[in-house]
């Protein structure tokens, strides 16, 4: 479904992603594991097209120079330089890190805003599905999103991404800043939504422990370089991963 070939991303002369290749097959749950500043968010931005928008805006004002080499293919189509709005139409939807919600709008409105490109019937239907997936959101319907807790915001953020009708859902650090209980709930929801809607999910995380047991395939990234890959089981048994992420 998604193929990344030798992707390199420079911010001026700093190399954020170095010769990175990966593949996501339809229906899989794929994880990208790495510590802070390993290049996970850069990868997500490159896949969702945000980096293209950043590049255009930086170029206009003569700011930082962002350079991309390599290729991103979505269903055999080269989307390396495609702007984000067109990728959303193709079904690539990113849920950014640090629970991105619109703080001054209420929960329901947030979900509606996410359905900008979708038909209103479909939006209503998905909003109902989101409330099924995260029952905790129902009673918060008319609360301003900025007043929600981190976990509630993360549920809302995932719900918003779902309203945009993803076929490939990109989750950038969905567990960041959440309590272990909330982490479990979010991962459970990711499992659920894959069961009901067959969405392909690519998620990046620094907390390997709750993620590795669930993923079909994983990539470990360090300083922008791919260091390890394998199935979730293989990665869990790998001594280096154990040392770095499980602390044993």
């Amino acid at each position, binding site marked *: 479904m998604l193929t990344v070939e030798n992707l390199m991303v420079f911010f001026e002369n700093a190399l954020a992603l170095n010769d990175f290749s990966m593949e996501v097959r339809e229906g899989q749950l794929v994880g990208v594991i790495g510590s802070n500043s390993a290049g996970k968010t850069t990868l997500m931005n490159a896949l969702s097209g945000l980096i293209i928008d950043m590049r255009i805006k930086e170029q206009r004002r003569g700011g930082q120079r962002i350079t991309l080499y390599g290729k991103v293919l979505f269903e055999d189509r080269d989307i390396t330089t495609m702007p984000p709005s067109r990728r959303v139409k193709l079904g690539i939807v990113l849920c950014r890190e640090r629970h991105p919600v619109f703080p001054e709008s209420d929960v329901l409105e947030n979900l509606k805003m996410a359905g900008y490109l979708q038909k209103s019937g479909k939006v209503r239907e998905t909003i109902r599905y989101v409330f099924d997936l995260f029952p905790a959101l129902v009673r918060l319907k008319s609360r301003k999103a900025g007043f929600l807790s981190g976990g509630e915001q993360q549920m809302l953020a995932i719900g918003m991404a779902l309203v*945009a009708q993803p076929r490939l859902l990109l989750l950038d650090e969905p567990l960041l800043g959440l309590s272990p209980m909330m982490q479990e709930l979010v991962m459970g929801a990711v499992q659920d939504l894959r069961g009901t809607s067959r969405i392909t999910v690519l998620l990046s995380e620094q907390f390997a422990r709750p993620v590795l047991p669930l993923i079909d395939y994983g990539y470990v990234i360090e300083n922008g370089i791919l260091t390890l890959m394998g199935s979730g089981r293989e990665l869990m048994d790998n001594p280096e991963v154990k040392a770095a992420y499980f602390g044993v």
Partner: protein
Amino acid sequence: MFLGTIVYGFINSAILALLSMGFNLTFGISGVANFAYGAVYIFSGFLAWILMHSWGVPYFISVLAAIFCSGCVGILMYYVVIIRVKGLSLSEVMATFGIGMAVMELFRYFDFVGFRYTLPVFVDGSLSFGEVYIDYQRVLIALIAVCLTGFIYVFTHHTRVGLAFRAIAQDERTALTFGIDSDRIGAFSMAFGSALAAVAAIVILPLGTIAVEGGYEVLINALAVCIVGGLGSTVGILVASVLIGYAQTFTANYLEPHWMILVSLIAIAVVLTVKPSGLFGRQKELEERI
């Protein structure tokens, strides 16, 4: 006299609200402080006048054309100029202010000065309100201000584009992840703001003549309302319009009429020193923007 001041103060508040609505909308959504706002205001006035008097176009068509053209001017300004300096506040202000000045001074150069440049009122006549007489045009201004406020509220809360407006205003990058194109929405917000300026011009200009100086005055008043109310806050705009509107009317009636404009300037100065983000301001970077 007192009752009259109350009524006319309300009308004046409505005028200020109409004037600042478009300015506030564009800023609230795309963060662009459109200093060409006053120029768009008199541009639409002159355009309607030219269409009616030089080309003989009927009133209603000229007015609609003027509003439509102002919207197009907004889009054009966004894609030709603003897009290149977007995010650089100072450059945005200089570019839009430059355009505004050029347009207004061009009108002056081509001799658009004098008492013959007036727009007709919708309906002639007046109604009495106790012992206060008030003409229909001023009643209409108040009505339109109320209707437009309602319309903008419904538009930004219940339509797809309106919701996208508010999404972009809150978090541009997150809005991008849902396919909301920030440039398209930015251009649209400029168009919307400029069209609102044109609507204000069409209903307010019949009270006087269309003059280049009017453009500067509109800009000062719009700025005063937005600074006092807090840029980007609709409630703030309404409250500030009422505050400044009544302050101006009371000054004009009980002190000296030509001190009216001082009220706006003093309001700007006081608010910027005491509470720079305005009474209801969400935009904390106001200090850098103005």
